[in-house]
């Protein structure tokens, strides 16, 4: 077995309480590495198409990567996988924190859940021993209280992930949380966890992650830290302010420069939201008490706030906001009130809802209100006018608690529009059911960026974190499946080179960059194949016209600019060797990548001959 792996994954059937260890297959590790690579391989092989995402047959996986729990610089990510109830297709999401390394210290590279428990439960993995326990005392508790109780029970060194009440209520926007705000937010996987009546997973242990060449790891770390301390290479996205602010200092300039979406994607910053100073980095850290970071991170980009003392009384320890939250509840809603966004961030983290989708859904409702589709009679008396921060906080509370009109919004803008009707669907800014990340694809038109196509062609639509699709995104899959943090690109250039160095030193492999990128391509194909098997052709998804500038803006920095999504998609399909109508990968490509079973599924005439 390659080093870097604990060598086994745990399968938990919540219907009958059965727990079973599976020895990790070495070839699967080599081919799919970890995280959603291994997750997609297992779900494609063992889960039938068409299962109800909130039913017993949907597998919910929590996975690490081979770098997780080692001295590699940024390797604390946890990936959660499953069929998404938001898109009815492939779902994955990841978060930082301390859970993933401690899952490995407890003895496992990952854990998969199937079935549905009769009563609320949590899983405890205590240094190699797994046990399902009653969670009746935790059900109904927010994520902060849940974590506090589990830590009281099992000690400060125990780590947990959990859902809040929003996940228990199976809101399709609900997420999975650790450390009061490290959140696997996208794809609605908190609802899957809630559907299984699985409140939390707690882990503790003292096992060591085996490493092939510890000296080599430390040499790569030394090099990487030197690069982080060095100057920002021209043209890179390295951001010397990142360690101080995290991502919170870009919302203000992005609002004015055209990168951040304004007014439910229908506005222009300099026209509709000329004062975005409440979204500045200094505003974000004004009430910050201390910095924090994920397990062994060499940067530590998080912040924790003092208690709110004004109109909004969020508790001490509330996470400092990050850009995506500032975008969704700030620029999208024309909300320049810093403290309200701090409060919202607290509410979303405590109750467990994805801030991107939640904020975008409220922006959708605000536009419906402006257009007269919704009135105060519909919104429980709340005046959903642009920039009305009190209304935004109030509606967020209704969403997370599933109360009144908040219940309509709690499953996202697509589902809300289906319920509201009256032509509201044209104001729902989603792709495939998932709200779009806070980066305007019109702003990112450099050849090779594929900023519009990624929102449609990635297996988890609407996401910005894959950065790209097609060959220019293969390396991002390697970031994710090794357990590496994507934000590393903001502190040093050429991250993939360091990942390659760390990966070879940790595992004992000697993998070339070509070989790693081919693994990225393999992973892109199996995520896509999962969706195809579910009957999803991404060409049937639509990026809303206003997102890609059809027609283009008439004012502001993006005046006259459209994103040529169709050209980007056309090029991507060719580069991936996917059919330009069905998007089915060619047989040749699938076989080249070693995906023989998938080739047989999609090209049945070749079944059994390879």
């Amino acid at each position, binding site marked *: 077995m390659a080093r870097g792996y604990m060598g086994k994954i745990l399968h938990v059937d919540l219907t009958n309480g059965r727990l079973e260890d599976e020895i990790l297959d070495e070839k699967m590790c080599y081919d799919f590495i970890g995280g959603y690579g291994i997750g997609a391989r297992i779900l494609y092989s063992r889960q039938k198409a068409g299962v109800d995402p909130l039913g017993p047959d949907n597998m919910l996986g929590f996975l690490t990567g081979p770098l997780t729990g080692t001295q590699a610089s940024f390797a604390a990510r946890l990936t959660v996988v499953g069929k998404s109830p938001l898109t009815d297709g492939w779902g994955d999401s990841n978060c930082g924190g301390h859970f993933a390394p401690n899952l490995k210290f407890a003895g496992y590279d990952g854990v998969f859940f199937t079935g549905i428990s009769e009563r609320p439960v949590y899983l405890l993995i205590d240094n190699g021993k797994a046990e399902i326990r009653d969670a009746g005392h935790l059900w109904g508790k927010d994520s902060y209280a849940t974590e506090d109780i589990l830590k009281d029970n099992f000690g400060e060194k125990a780590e947990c992930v959990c859902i809040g009440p929003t996940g228990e209520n199976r809101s399709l926007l609900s997420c999975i949380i650790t450390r009061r705000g490290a959140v696997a937010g996208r794809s609605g996987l908190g609802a899957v966890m809630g559907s299984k009546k699985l409140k939390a997973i707690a882990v503790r242990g003292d096992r060591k992650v085996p490493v092939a060449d510890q000296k080599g790891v430390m040499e790569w770390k030394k090099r990487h830290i030197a690069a982080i301390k060095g100057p920002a290479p021209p043209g890179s*996205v390295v951001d010397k302010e990142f360690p101080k602010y995290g991502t919170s200092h870009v919302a203000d300039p*992005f609002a004015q420069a055209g990168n951040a979406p304004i007014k439910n994607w229908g506005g222009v910053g300099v026209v509709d939201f000329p004062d975005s100073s409440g979204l500045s980095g200094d505003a974000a850290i004004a009430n910050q008490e201390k910095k924090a970071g994920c397990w062994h991170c060499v940067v530590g980009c998080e912040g924790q706030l003092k208690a709110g003392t004004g109109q909004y009384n969020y508790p001490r320890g509330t996470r400092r906001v990050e850009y995506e939250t500032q975008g969704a509840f700030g620029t999208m809603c024309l909300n320049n009130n810093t403290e309200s966004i701090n409060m919202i961030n607290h509410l979303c983290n405590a109750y467990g809802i994805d801030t991107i989708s939640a904020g975008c859904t409220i922006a959708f409702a605000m536009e419906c209100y402006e257009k007269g589709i919704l009135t105060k009679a519909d919104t429980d008396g709340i005046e959903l006018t642009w920039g009305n921060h009190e209304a935004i906080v109030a509606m967020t509370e209704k969403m997370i608690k599933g109360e009144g009109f908040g219940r309509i919004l709690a499953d996202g803008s697509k589902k809300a529009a289906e319920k509201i009707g009256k032509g509201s669907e044209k104001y729902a800014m989603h792709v495939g059911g998932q709200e779009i990340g806070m980066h305007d694809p019109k702003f990112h038109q450099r050849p090779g960026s594929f900023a519009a196509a990624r929102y449609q062609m990635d297996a988890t639509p609407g996401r910005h974190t894959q950065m790209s699709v097609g060959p220019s995104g293969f390396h991002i899959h390697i970031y994710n499946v090794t357990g590496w943090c994507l934000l590393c690109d903001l502190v040093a250039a050429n991250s993939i080179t360091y990942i390659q160095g760390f990966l070879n030193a940790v595992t004992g492999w000697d993998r070339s960059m070509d070989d790693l990128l081919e693994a990225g391509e393999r992973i892109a194909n199996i995520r896509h194949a999962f969706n195809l098997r579910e009957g999803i052709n991404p060409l049937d998804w639509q990026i809303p016209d206003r997102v890609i500038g059809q027609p283009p803006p008439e004012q*502001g*920095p*993006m005046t006259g*600019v459209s994103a040529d999504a169709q050209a980007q998609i056309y090029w991507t399909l060719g580069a991936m060797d996917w059919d330009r109508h069905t998007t089915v990968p060619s047989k040749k490509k699938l076989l080249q990548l070693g995906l023989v079973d998938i080739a047989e599924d999609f090209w049945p005439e070749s079944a059994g001959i390879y």
Partner: protein
Amino acid sequence: MQEIKVQLFGFPRNVTSKRDVVFTLGDGAILADVIANLRKSVPALDGFAIKPGENRLVEGFKFNHNGRLVYDDFSTEVNSGDHIALLIQVQGG
């Protein structure tokens, strides 16, 4: 001669405290000439958004010139009334 207006957005606006810069260029001027005049008019952009000693933008910065984003080919002719905006590089988020 023609009057050229360049709008500034995001960090360039914050760094210079200017919303736009207006100057006069001769007929047949190109975007590289716009960069040269931006340097003269707003020295704070030199080294920040404009490459020192070159009439080029620092990698990552770009123009929106009449709806077309221009990163590194500054040979396009400009005319009075053109929409020209200096845009930031992408960081964070």
